[in-house]
């Protein structure tokens, strides 16, 4: 394991500290308990948006704190959901009285910790709504499992719900648009290599030189199946097809196509995947109205990518286009 780190136990502390120094114009970092708050929070009259989860997915979530997106992010240890004693003060810090929406990726740990924090916040008089993100089609959605994971769709939920909050939507409306994004977004990922959690020191799964793992999540957890290495077009089809069919996409649909890098894959390769996905969608009469290509929700230094598609309507499109000013996503301002 070669990493640009000091003490493996200090990775999150030092990284978040550096993040706070680099983006002191946009965010304030609280070190203990650790959370990241939009510089001008709480914004009077605005619904607050809080998300969080294990670290190692940067720029998610801290990189999305700022105007038009999150009011606070709560980073846990690497790949470990944060604790209520972090989530609660973050929630209180961004509550202007209009209530707070928790955006939670559907993992047992995240759900349980946010649940506790929401109870505690409500006990302190803050109205809470929770938007659960579960867009990963690699996982069977069933009553008898933990359900689908929240992956790439999370970025889109945060952006669009954030824009709704910024324009002044009320608590229920912000949560509703977040839910609507979640209902219309699906993702699937692939790993060409595993990642190494600093405190573990060994790769999170084993892959032969000629194997890839299809259907991975974002926690270095193994995926749906190992298959022999294929070329980019073949891999793209394996990710795209289940996403398209789960969404029931067809001619006339307008979508946002998001090709996400897992951290260790160069942009040039993501564009090769994007090319194939865009061509396939065009063949099916689906219009790619918006695009996002890059490392937006990662798994440390894992090589691989995920494809996320959001079926757009006019409101989601205009909320996507609305100004955003965060360390990792910025436009219109």
């Amino acid at each position, binding site marked *: 394991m070669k990493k640009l780190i000091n003490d493996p136990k200090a990775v999150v502390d030092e990284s978040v500290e550096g993040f706070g120094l680099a983006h002191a114009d946009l965010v304030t970092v609280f070190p203990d308990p650790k959370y990241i708050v939009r510089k001008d929070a709480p914004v009077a009259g605005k619904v607050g948006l809080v998300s969080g989860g*294990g670290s190692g997915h940067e720029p998610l979530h801290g990189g999305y704190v700022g105007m038009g997106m999150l009011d606070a992010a709560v980073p846990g240890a690497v790949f*470990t959901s944060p*604790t209520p004693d972090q989530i609660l003060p973050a929630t209180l810090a961004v509550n202007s009285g209009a209530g707070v929406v928790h955006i939670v990726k559907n993992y047992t740990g995240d759900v349980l910790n946010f649940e506790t924090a929401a109870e505690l916040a409500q006990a302190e008089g803050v109205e809470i709504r929770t938007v659960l993100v579960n867009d990963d089609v690699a996982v069977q959605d069933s009553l008898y499992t933990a359900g689908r994971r929240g992956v790439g769709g999370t970025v889109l939920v945060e952006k669009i719900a954030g824009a709704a909050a910024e324009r002044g939507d009320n608590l229920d409306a912000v949560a509703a648009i977040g839910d609507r994004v979640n209902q219309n977004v699906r993702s699937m990922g692939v790993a060409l290599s595993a990642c190494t959690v600093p405190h573990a020191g*060994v790769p999170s799964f084993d892959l032969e030189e000629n194997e890839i793992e299809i259907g991975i999540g974002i926690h270095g957890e*193994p995926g749906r199946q190992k298959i022999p290495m294929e070329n980019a077009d073949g891999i793209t089809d394996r990710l795209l097809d289940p996403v398209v069919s789960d969404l029931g996409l067809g001619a006339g649909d307008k979508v946002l196509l998001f090709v996400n890098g897992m951290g260790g894959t160069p942009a040039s390769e993501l564009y090769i995947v994007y090319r194939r996905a865009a061509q396939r969608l065009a063949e099916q009469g689906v219009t790619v109205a918006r695009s996002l290509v890059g490392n937006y929700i990662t798994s440390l230094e894992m090589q691989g990518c995920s494809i996320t598609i959001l079926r757009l309507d006019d409101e989601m499109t205009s909320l996507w286009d609305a100004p955003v000013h965060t360390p990792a996503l910025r436009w219109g301002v």
Partner: protein
Amino acid sequence: MGLDVGWAVRWLTLSAQAMAEHRVELIELDRPIGDSDHGENMDRGFKAVMDKLAEAPPETPGAALKLTAMTLMSKVGGAAGPLYGTAFLRAATALGSTSDIDAATLATALQAARDGIVARGKAESGDKTMVDAWTPAIEAAAATAGDGDVRKVLLAAAEAAEAGAVSTDPMLARKGRASYLGERSIGHRDPGAVSSALILRAAAGAAE
């Protein structure tokens, strides 16, 4: 002779030692069917419990367990943090302010802990989670409590939990991160069940 606050502190101390010793093993168990952090999480959590115990020594076993619950909830994160937190909190509540735990109270407290885990995590027996260690453990505790010997209760619970952890090997996971793997989760031992067995073994060790 029941169990006092000294036992509770010894239990937590032995648990902390066990988590430190088995840290790598628990990480390794969490690797094939999870995200390689369970050992790290538990070790971090129990180290924090030790710090808290040193800062403000508790006066009753219930107070020790409550302090443990709050610390695990705030330091562990992940799935295990809230689950163990709830378990210790419910056990603490069951114990109330008693300073001398008899066998029946002990069995009740263990049952409350297990029920807390189930209430939070919604897992059933056979789902390949820590519940598969706790359920046989409380059954064994209930079965032995009648004899009135707290040590015997704890030993029975620990042994049953260890067997319960082993029993998760062939199970197909239906809760937690391992459930994403479907069939591929079969053949691996659940890390949370193993840490649960270690904690219950520590409870027995503390009563020696």
